[in-house]
């Protein structure tokens, strides 16, 4: 017969024929069942995509005259998920073998259940890695002979149905290549299910038959398998050597209502109105200034630095600036510093080498450096005397201006310790007058967590009044 007269011609990629499968391989039947299902449902073939991995069964994607990707080994599911996310209107089907989907791609198989996206996974289980000569795979029956288990497979097989059910697939079914009508029914139901669907299709491989002296798995499936209307826990188990094989639908449920992650409306925090602080911008006259705020993780060192740089930008929007934070792997309790460079010119080197203004909220960094406080000899040090060992300042040049404030103590007594950085900021504002008061207050309002603006402003005022 001329291939163009074949009833499936419209969905077959004729130029790819003949296929690469062994004569007697039954994978082709699964391909035909898929075509039947697509035609039966009247799907627009232009809107059907197939994605496969690597292996004998993964070659199906290439024989179908649909948009298709023959991806890397084990990665068909995430590749298909990407296609679906880019164009949610497509019907996307994954074709693969047991080794591909359950072995190397096992993590993706699990994750899709959780992601809950509408993909159809057709897993052709032939009990091993056929394309490479039949090594044992995740579903190889206990005791079965393969090229890498010549004495019989010593490993317990994985049960795909049990895993799919546990992983949260909304449609789970088992069929075989020997039951084409049943298979088409399963495929149609999987396509109609709106969540992730999983069909395990048992399929004979000549290599498995030969090595295990089975005359015909095809005949064996017909003999042992029963199609059941309702299935129980006991029906989940099967393998090529078992007495009975149950076929049918283990689950066909709706995907539970849950908002798709990307389209979920951002939850608006119920916060009171932000206090308004007006400020005037002006030319700051700053040519080049290095500011460092250092302390211990959890003291609001990064937050304080952000307030500082935002305040500087409020004051002089033309100013160039950089902010860099340094901390170890631990977010709390380790040393932490924020470097800010303000400049009338573009900032190149973004680290503070010698601070003009050093704000110390703990002595941790200095101690890590061997006790040396680094600051410009005409610069300013503002320290939190409730947390810093004052003897660290003993060796500083006389020209350095030193200001002390018990910021943490004030914050603890009047507010909460977390606002110590703003007590500090108030004090810095007053003593150094580098940045205008209202510019800092506006910056505090901007970076304070919603609902805490008033407390942070009060802490600032407290520091300012000292």
């Amino acid at each position, binding site marked *: 017969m001329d291939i163009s007269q074949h009833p499936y011609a419209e969905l077959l*990629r004729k*130029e*790819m024929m003949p296929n690469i499968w062994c004569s007697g391989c039954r994978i082709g039947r699964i391909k035909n069942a898929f075509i039947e299902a697509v035609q039966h449902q009247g799907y627009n*073939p*232009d*809107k059907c*995509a197939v*994605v496969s991995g690597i292996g004998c069964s993964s070659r199906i*994607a*290439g024989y179908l*005259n*649909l*948009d*298709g*990707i*023959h*991806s*890397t080994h084990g*990665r068909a599911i*995430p*590749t*298909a*998920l*990407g*296609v679906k*996310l*880019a*164009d949610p*209107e*497509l019907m996307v089907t994954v074709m693969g073998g047991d080794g591909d989907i359950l072995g190397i791609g096992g*993590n*993706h198989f*699990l*994750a899709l259940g959780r*992601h809950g996206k509408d993909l159809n996974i057709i897993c052709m289980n032939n009990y091993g890695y056929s394309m490479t000569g039949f090594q044992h795979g995740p579903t190889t029956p206990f005791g079965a002979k393969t090229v890498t288990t010549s004495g019989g497979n010593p490993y317990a097989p994985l049960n795909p149905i049990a895993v799919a059910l546990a992983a949260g697939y909304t449609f789970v079914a088992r069929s075989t290549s020997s039951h084409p009508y049943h298979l088409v029914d399963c495929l149609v139901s999987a396509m109609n299910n709106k969540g992730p669907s999983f069909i395990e299709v048992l399929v004979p491989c000549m290599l498995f038959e030969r090595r295990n002296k089975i005359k015909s798995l095809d005949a064996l499936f017909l003999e042992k398998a029963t199609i059941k209307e309702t299935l129980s826990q006991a029906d989940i188990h099967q393998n090529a050597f078992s007495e009975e094989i149950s076929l049918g639908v283990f689950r066909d449920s709706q995907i539970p209502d849950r908002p798709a*992650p*990307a*389209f*979920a409306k*951002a939850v608006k925090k119920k916060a009171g109105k932000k206090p308004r602080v007006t400020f005037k911008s002006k030319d700051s006259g700053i040519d080049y200034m290095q500011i460092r705020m250092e302390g211990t993780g959890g003291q609001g060192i990064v937050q304080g630095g*952000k307030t500082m*740089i*935002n305040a500087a*930008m409020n004051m002089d*929007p033309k100013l*160039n*600036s*950089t*902010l*860099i*934070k340094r*901390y*170890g*792997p631990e977010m709390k309790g380790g040393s932490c510093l924020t470097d800010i460079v303000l400049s009338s010119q573009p*900032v*190149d*080197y*973004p*680290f503070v*080498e010698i601070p003009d203004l050093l704000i110390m909220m703990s002595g941790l960094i200095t101690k890590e450096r061997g006790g040396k406080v680094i600051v410009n000899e005409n610069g300013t040090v503002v320290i939190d005397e409730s947390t810093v060992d004052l003897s660290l300042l003993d060796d500083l040049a006389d020209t350095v201006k030193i200001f002390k404030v018990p910021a943490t103590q004030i914050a603890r007594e009047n507010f909460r310790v977390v606002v110590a950085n703003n007590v500090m900021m108030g004090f810095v504002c007053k003593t150094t007058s580098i940045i205008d008061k209202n510019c800092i207050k506006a910056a505090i309002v901007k970076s304070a967590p919603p609902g805490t603006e008033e407390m942070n402003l009060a802490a600032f005022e407290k520091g300012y009044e000292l």
Partner: protein
Amino acid sequence: MTKDKKGDNKRVLITGNDAVVEGLCCAAGNKRRIVYAGYPITPASEIATRASVVLAKHGGTFIQMEDEIASIQAISGAGLAGAIAVTATSGPGMSLMSEGLGFAAMIESPIICVNVQRGAPSTGMPTWMGQGDMMQARWGTHGDRPVIVLVPNSVEETLLLTYEACKLSQEYLNPVTLMLDEIIGHMEEPISIPKLPPIPVNPDSQIIGNGHRFHRTGLTHDLESCLPSINPETQEKLVRKLLDKVKKNADKIIKYETYGSLSEAKVIIVCYGSESRSVKAALKQISGKKMKVAMLRLITAWPTPKDLICKLDKKDRIFLVAEINDGQIKIEFERYIKKGDVEGLNLMGGRIHTPGEILEAVERLI
């Protein structure tokens, strides 16, 4: 914060990691769907955090995948289905993505992969910078493939190069890697968000779902039909065609910045990424001293600006390649410099050189 409503000069303070997402939004311009698939990893996680909030507002999709392998595969699929497809990670994730990058190049999926480099190898220093993945970016997959790698050195340039990466990936239907490092990723700088034209889908490309009914495979395939055809002749034609996309257009792709007079320089300091900020600061410090030093900053790390290097090659000229690795880009200069000399200035990661250290190195050479 994403859009500038109050006039052109309003600047926002954002990190390099934030700027990646802003660059994507500029490229999409509410016209294209963005698909971001990624897996959390320091120091790139903030890109995912921001993407998860911002992309939805731009008609995009953010998905956190089960691992980096899944991430790159998902965007390879999304790229073929017409989306601006992007992932972001750091060195360890990049290593896992190696196979996927080669696959994307083979199926010609236009994807963008961001690597915020940390100190390496292995887990290395997650919260500290490194530049040790430059050769991985070039060779980190099996086989030959066309490679485009961009390296920004500021928050603003990160935004612009993310946009550029989207453009180049469409133009050449090939993955583009954007190499930040931890400093650039975490540093905050005020920038104004520019208005840029959305990047259209390459009109010559086939898109899944548009009726082309095409097949793409990682197997060696015929150039026209894209169907597998495994023989030396097809392989020869296919791989050469893929490589030529970048080879033949290298001069259009390559970008660099110079500071000082290259033609008069006795020492040319070669650098890229955050390290280049030290180099420039150092050169500004000696600008009055008439020292014959200039900077060549690579914005495109791959393909290598071979012609430029050969043109600059001259007897008694020294190329000082300053980088935070054991001399990975230096190897490229050694390949092409025949008359002059190539020296390295290297740190193994965690920090960049100070301007003082750069000047010391220059003084040793002059």
